[in-house]
């Protein structure tokens, strides 16, 4: 005959006090963990011959096994004066949730009605003391008793495993082995380090294609930093951003020599700024409408490093870097543009708009090629992979989608965050995507398997911008928590 160490417990309420643990195993009382029983022991009134079975994982006192019944509290079965069902001060009937707790996960324990009836008699005495309490008291401690497996056992109604820690449970009930992770997943351990605090929210970050330079923006300040030497230079600094101003993203040219963004300048002018990193020479392009009518929200540079494309509330404009002049704007009307990227051959511009539409434009003719209703809410960022075949978009609708560039058709929904996604970027080999969102998280996705291989937490506010440092081992993120972080794959 198998014997187990068991303790009785009781969860109930009285006239005045809400449901709580009334009696708990002594080791749980000592550990201050009695509240767990009130949370884990639940269910409707038990049918005759049936008890609830529940495994509890990860508690302060280790794993537990609970076997219990839910019965109506009556004067007769509690010994409390009166007759019929006991009721609370509002006239609602009261349940007794009573049973046994065992340490560890014990799947071969058989409990009979006789055992539960026996412990009920003991628990009823404690309930009588509890009945008139108006103030909270700690649970009464129950002592260990020896439980022997019975031949006549109750049928179990098995409840879902309860995680006391809130984490996912790796249940001993699993019959199939955990799949062996592929090599990419096995390596998905990341460490991070903050790169230093900024005086204000980091609204954009960018990395040069050779991985030597990063640029970041807060308010109206643009800074570049050499990752090898850590030398830092302010390219531009015109003070704090005002409420109502927007911050355009930063973008490096392909050759790493130019950096571009949009800026609000004196007299509320919306200006495209381009800097030569080496000479610090600055170019300004004026042409967007002033004030809120022409805020710049998106920037891109063609792969040949010759043309800047800016997009915003008054559509898309094209600027020639060599001549310093406007090249034109796209002929068809577009609604407010929030994201832009350029195809690898430099011939097609891809824009993402406030109404969730992705548009494909021919740069030479400046005409619209195709329009796709991609998301239900504003698109915040668009990226194209290094081989130019796949486009990634992310949106306020919390999703990342992949698009076939050639067919302009949706490939799949890659994944989601729990809040709007602000930024998305491909790694230099195109195999990974990184995303940053309002949920404070950075996620890394494997393009081939369409799986999320890492969720990077550490920022305390929205992640505004993400990028891979070339080599796919390091991710850079900027956040409204005024920090940037480098995430290294271990």
């Amino acid at each position: 005959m198998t014997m187990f160490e068991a303790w009785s417990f009781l969860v109930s309420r009285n006239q005045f006090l809400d449901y709580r643990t009334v009696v708990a195993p002594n080791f749980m009382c000592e550990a201050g963990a009695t509240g767990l029983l009130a949370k884990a022991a639940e269910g409707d009134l038990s049918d005759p011959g049936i008890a609830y079975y529940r495994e509890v994982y990860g508690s302060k006192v280790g794993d537990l096994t609970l076997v219990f019944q839910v019965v109506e509290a009556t004067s007769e079965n509690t010994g409390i004066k009166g007759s019929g069902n006991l009721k609370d001060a509002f006239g609602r009937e009261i349940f007794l949730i009573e049973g046994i707790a065992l340490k560890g996960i014990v799947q071969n324990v058989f409990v009979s009605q006789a055992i539960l009836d026996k412990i009920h008699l003991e628990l009823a005495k404690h309930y009588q003391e509890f009945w008139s309490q108006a103030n909270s008291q700690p649970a009464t401690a129950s002592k260990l008793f020896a439980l022997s497996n019975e031949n006549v056992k109750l049928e179990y109604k098995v409840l879902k495993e309860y995680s006391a820690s809130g984490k996912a449970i790796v249940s001993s009930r699993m019959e199939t082995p955990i799949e062996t992770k592929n090599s990419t997943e096995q390596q998905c351990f990341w460490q991070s380090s903050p790169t230093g605090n900024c005086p204000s929210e980091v609204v954009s970050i960018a990395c040069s294609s050779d991985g030597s330079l990063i640029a970041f923006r807060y308010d109206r300040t643009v800074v570049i930093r050499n990752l090898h030497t850590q030398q830092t230079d302010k390219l531009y600094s015109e003070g704090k951003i005002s409420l109502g101003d927007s911050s355009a993203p930063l973008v490096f040219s392909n050759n790493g020599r130019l950096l571009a963004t949009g800026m609000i300048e004196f007299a509320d002018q919306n200006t495209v700024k381009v800097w030569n990193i080496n000479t610090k020479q600055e170019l300004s392009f004026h042409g967007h409408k002033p004030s809120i009518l022409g805020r710049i929200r998106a920037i891109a540079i063609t792969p040949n490093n010759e043309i800047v494309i800016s997009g915003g509330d008054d559509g898309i404009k094209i600027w020639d870097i060599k001549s310093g002049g406007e090249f034109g704007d796209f002929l068809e009307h577009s609604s407010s543009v929030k994201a832009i990227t350029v195809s690898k051959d430099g011939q097609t511009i891809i824009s993402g708009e406030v109404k969730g539409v992705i548009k494909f434009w021919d740069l030479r003719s400046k005409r619209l090629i195709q329009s796709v209703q991609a998301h239900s809410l504003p698109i915040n960022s668009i990226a194209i992979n290094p081989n130019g075949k796949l486009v990634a978009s992310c949106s306020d609708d919390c999703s990342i989608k992949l698009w076939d560039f050639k067919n302009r058709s949706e490939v799949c929904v890659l994944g989601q965050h729990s809040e709007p996604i602000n930024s998305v970027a491909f790694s230099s080999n195109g195999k990974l995507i990184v995303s940053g969102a309002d949920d404070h998280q950075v996620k890394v996705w494997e393009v081939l398997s369409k799986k999320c291989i890492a969720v990077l937490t550490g920022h305390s506010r929205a992640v505004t911008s993400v990028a891979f440092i070339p080599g796919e081992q390091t991710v850079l993120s900027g956040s409204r928590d005024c920090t940037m972080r480098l995430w290294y794959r271990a």
Partner: protein
Amino acid sequence: MLGPSGSGKTVFLASMFKKLSTQGELGFFLEVDGEEKRKRLVNLYKQIAVEEKWPIGTLRSEVSEWIFTCRVQTPNLPIYSACQFEYLDYAGGRITDELEEEDREFDDKIKHADTLLGLLDGQRLRALMRNEQLGLLWAIGDLPNMLTVMQRSVKPVHFVISKWDVLEEEYSLKEIRDRLLQIDEFKNLVNLRNQAGSPIRLIPVSAVGKGFATLQPDGSMVKSLASLPHPFQVEVPLACILPDMIQVHLEELIQKRQQELSTPLEIKPNLSFWDRLGQVFGSGLRTIRELLPRKYQFADELLENLVKFAEEPAQQKQTSAVRRTEELRQEQAASLKAVEDEETALRHVVNCFLFIKNQLDSKFPESNLKLL
């Protein structure tokens, strides 16, 4: 919704869903996430409406999250979703029990809620008004416990008086309001919210309506079962949330903007909300919209409506409310005809919310806890 054990959270939930489960004159209806949940709510209401017993108290193990979608059925029958909200139901002892162990997950849910609705138990309020011990105990025990939780939040808070059917025969809302304001903790919370410009309301509701249940000497409520319940104003707390959230955010923006300006603007008294926004931002809705949290970046027309019908100076409140009733009724009728997608459905639902809110202002002007 915060409230001690027995205050009526679960019954309110079931009655609200019942009243709003089909589209009637309120102009929209609710769907809940999942068929099992829908059945549970229906069964709960059935127990309330036709069985002798009330549903048992919510178990400590239950923290139910109910996600409701507001939907609109057009005259031509297509249905569109407008917006979603999540309602948290739980055992009241979680917030009143002094021995409650720390529950970070639950605390986080409270912390991240967009609005807190504090449920004031109508039975306990009645006892308080009659200076009975139960009422006094509630006023010095359960109520301050709840107020402490509410005070920690920076989000809008409203008070909902449950079991209004028990109170309305004997006391007016004004009398109850005045008595509550004699409680220091209550008055302090209201004052703080007033100073921050955050709307704060006292909304009487009855999940079962007048005449359905009678209060007994022992404190229990006995159902008549001769008639069905008629929930009263159970839709009002929901309707107030979105307009008030927008107002709170806009008020914050006005204050932030004023701090930025090198020469502070003199804000004239008795300006409408629209005028105050105009004075500080000048350039109109687009700027304002982009400064709002993403989930409130509505289309211009919708935002304009919300701002237009946002809180007015208290003196004008009731006269405005009466005047606006017809205007809002017409807007509601027109917006229903115009529903053809989710955006227009949301616009219609917001009009419905504004109409309901306006009705509250009109019938219960004392529900606005803005102190003069």
